[in-house]
């Protein structure tokens, strides 16, 4: 309807003008691509004009290290106190003194921890949640992952509150001072979310040392942004009436914030906390590489020895931990604060908490006398490891030829041509096209941002690797979007299919990608096909979720109206459901692209030749500048893609008359 209107509107000539501009631009770039000799400097960035940003960053890091080590090390020491405390409590126990007559205090008993999780589940969500929480924790214990899982839990238990506190503070600051939000906080959050963690691992090691604290801080950088964003959102969403009411009863600024605004925004804030927990769990492998240990390290070690089964079990233990923490925190978010009843003592007010503390204390004391309470007895441990390995071997022996034919076809006829096309693409041409798209979609501001970011990739001498990154991410994101949207539509039509698909989505997102990378390498060899499959498996999740959600949230009344006016099933889908769900689907697509980009680093472990590899080389050489520069390039590719996609979603929405 609206689309038809624009054709007859006075804007028509302008559109024709733009078509001309686009044709001209594409023609220019095509000529440049065919005949690179006219302007070689516009095709390949001249090597003597490369800006040595990497060297500058390295020099800056060295200066920081010599002058501020005292500060960063004191920060490490301060954070180390609660962290070591949590590790002792959950995983290692306390040891006073040294040598044979050292006094040791036991850690919390595993039976007690399982029971405490069950009680927490019962308190927040009734008997079903209690069963789920207990089941997951017992699974971890029986499969012999307890010690590592508790190490991981200790890290999470300290870094999540840290993220939440700092996230809240930053969010409040952003809410109070919108100009700081726009000019500093938003760009910073974008960088924190798109910059691969490996890129800042070396600076972390230099400044904060090879200790669990570095792992914790790296986790915090990655996991904090959702907290800041949801704080801002929560504060903005508080209805004006409540705000005004706070004013009327004479609250000070501080009282209004603490007693009125934050409590009213609690549900949204809890969504942020939930996201922080999930992202923190995503980081466990990375932090295990710099001194933290835990489940992530087990996955890494098992994979080095090709113990697919063991690494799968450690990976699934991470998933189990993620499910418990996710469901518990979601249930906690739904809790309504209970009314305060006077004249109750502590036990009456918090019966579950008291019970949990009692159980923990009781079992831990018992564990001093009964060894079965202290650590999981070997007799009841079990393992599915041989089974996983057998499945992979069986597929390998029976289906390799078919898989190989598929791989070769994909590589020779699809992937390699796209790669060659993109790697040879003139950098100036890309800058021009991207800038034009930015200008057309949003305006001069966006155009300048995307042009500068694209030019950064060329000016640092990373152009070919950037294009290789674009190729792998682009292809993977497209494949993930195609399959994901189709699966999402199917899930939206059938509750049973959705119920089947959602646990798989949860698993794909929390299972460390390393776990499935090695089996995929066994079947698809080292190379781009393997990288693509691993990326698609990870990036498909938001495409499924958002499509499903987008179609399901269409108001019943609209569907009824369409049925009444006589839509066929087909018309209903193409004319009503799809257009109405389009904004959500585009949002999912946006997330898919960003997730695909975040897999670049993991793919470098298979053996791709792009920015991920550059980050890895920098890591091996402990070159802070090189790693950060490549990290910035990856982040900029992500931000450019994100901004352009968002701008086109906005345009689409206004065209469809949805805003």
């Amino acid at each position, binding site marked *: 309807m609206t689309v038809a209107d624009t054709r007859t509107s006075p804007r028509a000539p302008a559109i024709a003008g733009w078509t001309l501009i686009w044709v001209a631009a594409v023609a220019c770039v095509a000529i440049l691509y065919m005949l690179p000799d006219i302007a070689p400097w516009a095709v390949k960035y001249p090597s003597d004009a490369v800006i040595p940003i990497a060297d500058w960053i390295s020099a800056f890091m060295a200066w920081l290290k010599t002058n501020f080590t005292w500060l960063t090390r004191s920060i490490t*020491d*301060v*954070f180390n*106190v*609660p962290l070591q405390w949590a590790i002792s409590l959950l995983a290692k126990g306390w040891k*006073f*003194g*040294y*040598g044979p007559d050292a*006094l040791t205090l036991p850690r919390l008993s595993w039976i007690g921890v399982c029971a405490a999780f069950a009680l927490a589940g019962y308190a927040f969500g009734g008997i079903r949640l209690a069963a789920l929480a207990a089941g997951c924790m017992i699974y971890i214990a029986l499969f012999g992952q307890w010690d590592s899982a508790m190490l991981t839990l200790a890290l999470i238990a300290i870094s999540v509150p840290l993220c939440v*506190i700092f996230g809240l*503070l930053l969010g*409040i*600051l952003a809410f109070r001072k919108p100009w700081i939000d726009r000019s500093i906080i938003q760009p910073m959050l974008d960088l924190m979310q798109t910059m691969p963690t490996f890129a800042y*691992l070396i600076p972390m*090691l*230099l400044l904060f*040392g*090879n*200790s*669990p604290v570095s792992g914790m801080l790296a986790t915090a950088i990655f996991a904090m942004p959702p907290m800041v964003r949801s704080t801002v959102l929560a504060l903005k969403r508080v209805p004006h009436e409540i705000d005004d009411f706070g004013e009327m009863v004479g609250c000070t600024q501080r009282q209004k914030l603490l007693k009125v605004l934050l409590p009213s925004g609690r549900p949204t804030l809890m969504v942020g906390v939930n996201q922080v927990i999930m992202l923190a769990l995503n980081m466990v492998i990375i932090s*295990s*590489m*710099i*001194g933290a*240990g835990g489940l992530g*390290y087990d996955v*890494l*070690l098992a994979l*080095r*020895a*090709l*113990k697919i089964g063991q690494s799968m079990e450690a990976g699934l233990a991470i998933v189990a931990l993620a499910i418990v923490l996710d469901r518990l925190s979601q249930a906690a978010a739904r809790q309504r604060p209970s009314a305060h009843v006077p004249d109750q003592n502590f036990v009456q007010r918090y019966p579950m908490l008291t019970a949990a503390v009692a159980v923990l204390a009781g079992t831990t004391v018992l564990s001093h006398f009964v060894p079965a309470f202290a650590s999981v007895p070997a007799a009841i441990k079990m393992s599915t490891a041989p089974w996983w390995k057998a499945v992979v071997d069986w597929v*390998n*022996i029976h289906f*390799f030829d078919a898989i*190989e034919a598929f791989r*070769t076809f994909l*590589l*020779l006829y699809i992937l*390699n041509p796209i790669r060659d096309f993109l790697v040879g693409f003139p950098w100036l041409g890309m800058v021009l096209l991207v800038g034009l798209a930015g200008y057309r979609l949003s305006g001069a501001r966006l155009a300048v941002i995307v042009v500068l970011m694209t030019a950064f990739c060329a000016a640092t001498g990373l152009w070919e690797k950037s294009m290789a990154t674009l190729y792998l991410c682009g292809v993977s994101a497209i494949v993930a979007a195609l399959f994901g949207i189709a699966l999402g539509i199917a899930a939206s039509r059938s509750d049973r299919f959705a119920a089947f698909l959602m646990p798989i989505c949860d698993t794909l997102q929390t299972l460390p990608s390393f776990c499935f*990378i*090695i*089996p995929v*390498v*066994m*079947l698809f*060899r*080292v*190379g781009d096909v393997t990288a693509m499959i691993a990326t698609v498996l990870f990036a498909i999740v938001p495409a499924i979720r958002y499509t499903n959600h987008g179609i399901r949230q269409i108001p019943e009344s609209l569907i009824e109206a369409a049925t009444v006016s006589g839509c066929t099933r087909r018309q209903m889908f193409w004319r009503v459901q799809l257009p109405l769900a389009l904004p959500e689907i585009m949002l999912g697509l946006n997330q898919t692209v960003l997730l695909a980009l975040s897999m670049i680093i993991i*793919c470098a*472990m*298979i*053996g791709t030749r792009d920015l991920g*590899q550059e980050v890895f*080389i920098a*890591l*091996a*050489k*402990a070159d802070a500048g090189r790693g950060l520069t490549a990290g910035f390039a990856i982040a900029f590719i992500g931000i450019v893609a994100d901004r352009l996609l968002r701008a086109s979603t906005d345009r689409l929405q206004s065209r469809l008359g949805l805003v």
Partner: protein
Amino acid sequence: MYRYVKGVLTGGACAALLSLAGLPQAMAAPESNDPIKIALFDWTSVNLNAKILGGILTKLGYNVEYPTADYLSSLTTGLTNGDIDIGVEFWDTTAAEAMKASDATGQTERLGALGPKAKEEWWYPLYMKEKCPGLPDWKALKDPKCAEAFSTPDTAPKGRYLGGPVTWEGFDDERVEALGLPFTVVHAGTDGAMFAELDSAYQRKAPILLWIYSPHWAPAKYQGEWVQFPEYEPACYTDPKWGVNPDKKYDCGKPHGEIWKYSWKGLKDKWPGAYKVAKAYTIDVNELNKLSGQVDLDGKSIDDVAAQWINANEAKWKEWAK
């Protein structure tokens, strides 16, 4: 804002003080009671050596911790400032440049060789000998038929050679060019990916030619042979005139080398006794392979295997501590 920050900081500082006050003064143990940190990396033999050395030091009364770390970058980060005190395996073959960089900082110390010699070379499973009878001589690989036997559809007619990560200083692209081998070099990103391909191919008796190193569990688990290239000499990597190709460097096999132990420079003064043991610590290559096999192939835990070695070799390590 300021008040919040202040609150957080004071809270942290109080917690720090409390925990310090809570610790009872330790009984007299050798030199210093601070924990000696021995790095764990992500392969079996290094962790075995770390746990054995750490176990010995524990028996001698030292307090030992095992932080996990990254192999190459630890040489120029953790070991330079005492976040890591000892690293037990740095291979000449993969970490030569990183060790040079570490030596240049002057804050680390090379504790001498661990004992086993590192060997790395192109490797193939025995069943490939039927398809390429001239092996293990490298000249057999020049035969187009032989190269074809090692090829995949995307490299054909050239053979496919699976090299290690680019960071491993392998010079395989250069080697292929200098020796005129009809092969395409594919780099794996990690050795996990490399051995995954080997395991997959070995199960199907499919062609594979790849970079393998020893000591490692792979040569023990899979039957195969090293390709025999012209023996490495330092001149081969620096002087084009050396070797079969007078115009190119790298016309030889990969260097063999030592595996080195490294320590933080302060180890010597802070824990002289532990320093002596770490410096004296060596292990026999066959023994190490056997111990690695017990972990990787028989599924025993690293801690058990290490403890068993310590109990069986008490006389040996008591000698080191003297």
